[in-house]
């Protein structure tokens, strides 16, 4: 058994003529909190659905705990929990009844985890799921997922539509889980500020492929923005170049520090580090570059 929880190998998937994933590779190691970022419509949800065996792949291979999630779904998903983008629990049931329903399906269910989470989130016990607030629904979904004591937690944009307070509470619960049990996490999100604080790895999906796949520690060191006059020679291997308000701007994603420094000294260019958000925009922007 390797340390891989899940793996995509040259996966092509999607509908009809236009594959959403196209030669998609991703490796998820035990203990990682892997955040997959992408613009809307780039296939984040397709990746999640393939991973969970909800959609077959057209080519390539997905494995989950070494098994094919499509053909061996029950075994592959035995230790996996999922929080969907749209809360989809049975609408007529209250939180305690939802818990009892799910408990029967989950061999490792721990009721104490479930009720402690509901308490912390202040979810009322007597209101049917459909009438809970968006934030309360997200907490119920997370509590259902965590009480089954998964080894692997998959979250598809779980904080979409939540306000700041609810988002903070949601991520707080997630950190609590990481601290207590060290679950492996795969999360897609648009909430880059929160992702940066909790992720160990970040991937950016663009045009069906993984355009960026890095450990968070290496990420900020790996990118630089440079700004220079129009007649200055280009730095080596720019990722993208744009003419900006203050001169020419380039993003470097693959630079040699010594080489960059000597270029800076020769040209007097400005070299600045980048935030994750800036890096995401530079990598995910679909305009033709350089």
């Amino acid at each position, binding site marked *: 058994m390797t340390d891989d929880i899940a793996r995509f190998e040259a996966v092509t998937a999607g509908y009809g003529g236009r594959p959403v994933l196209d030669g998609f590779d991703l490796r998820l190691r035990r203990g990682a909190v892997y955040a997959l970022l992408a613009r809307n419509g780039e296939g984040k949800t397709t990746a999640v659905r393939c991973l969970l065996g909800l959609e077959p792949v057209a080519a390539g291979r997905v494995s989950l705990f070494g098994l094919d999630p499509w053909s061996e779904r029950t075994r592959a998903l035995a230790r996996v929990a999922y929080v969907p983008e749209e809360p989809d629990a049975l609408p007529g049931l209250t939180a305690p009844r939802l818990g009892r329903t799910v408990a029967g399906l989950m061999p490792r269910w721990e009721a104490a985890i479930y009720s402690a989470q509901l308490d912390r989130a202040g979810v009322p016990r007597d209101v049917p799921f459909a009438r809970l607030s968006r934030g309360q629904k997200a907490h119920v979904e997370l509590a259902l997922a965590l009480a089954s004591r998964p080894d692997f937690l998959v979250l598809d944009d779980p904080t979409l539509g939540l306000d700041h307070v609810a988002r903070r509470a949601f991520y707080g619960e997630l950190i609590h889980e990481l601290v207590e049990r060290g679950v492996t996490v795969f999360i897609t999100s648009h909430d880059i500020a929160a992702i940066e604080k909790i992720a160990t790895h970040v991937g950016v999906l663009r045009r069906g492929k993984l355009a960026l796949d890095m450990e968070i520690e290496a990420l*900020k060191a790996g990118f630089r923005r440079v700004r220079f006059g129009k007649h200055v020679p280009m730095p080596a291997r720019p990722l993208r170049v744009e003419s900006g308000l203050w001169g020419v701007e380039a993003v470097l994603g693959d630079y040699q520090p010594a080489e960059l420094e000597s270029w800076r000294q020769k040209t007097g260019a400005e070299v600045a580090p980048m935030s994750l958000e800036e890096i995401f925009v530079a990598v995910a922007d679909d305009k033709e570059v350089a």
Partner: protein
Amino acid sequence: MPCARPTRAQVSAGPAASDRLTASASLYYNTDTVTGLRIDPSAATPIWSQLEEQLRQLVATRRLAPGAPVPSVRALAAELIVNPATVAKAYQRLCDAGVLVVRRGEGTFVADRPPEMSRTERARALRESAERYAAVARTLGAGTDEAIAAVEAVLGRLDRAIGGSKR
């Protein structure tokens, strides 16, 4: 916000809801005045490095006194909503540098004698900060005497604030 100093049990307990959801895991002055850490995910500096830098600052300015306890990795991660591994990395680097010490079964503390920077390190750090300040002063059109007077005034205020104990 005034805040009771957390007991060791609270700090290391982690799972207690009240512990995680209040400011009890905040770093505090040795005078029971709460101070805090600010993580800025939009900054270009990695989060572990922001944490390391701010903790170093709190120790250097004695807002965290020698021997004072610091929150457990878990408690601080929960409070800041940051991956525990990130907090652990900052703590590890500070332990390696002799700023913090781990006492088994007790927790993590500011070292009794936090290390001084080496003289060359300190000289370099001072020069770099001075360069930035000098550039600002000249941009504002300040003369040398005026610029130095402003620094002296700030230094005097700082010394009074920390009781003149550290010069």
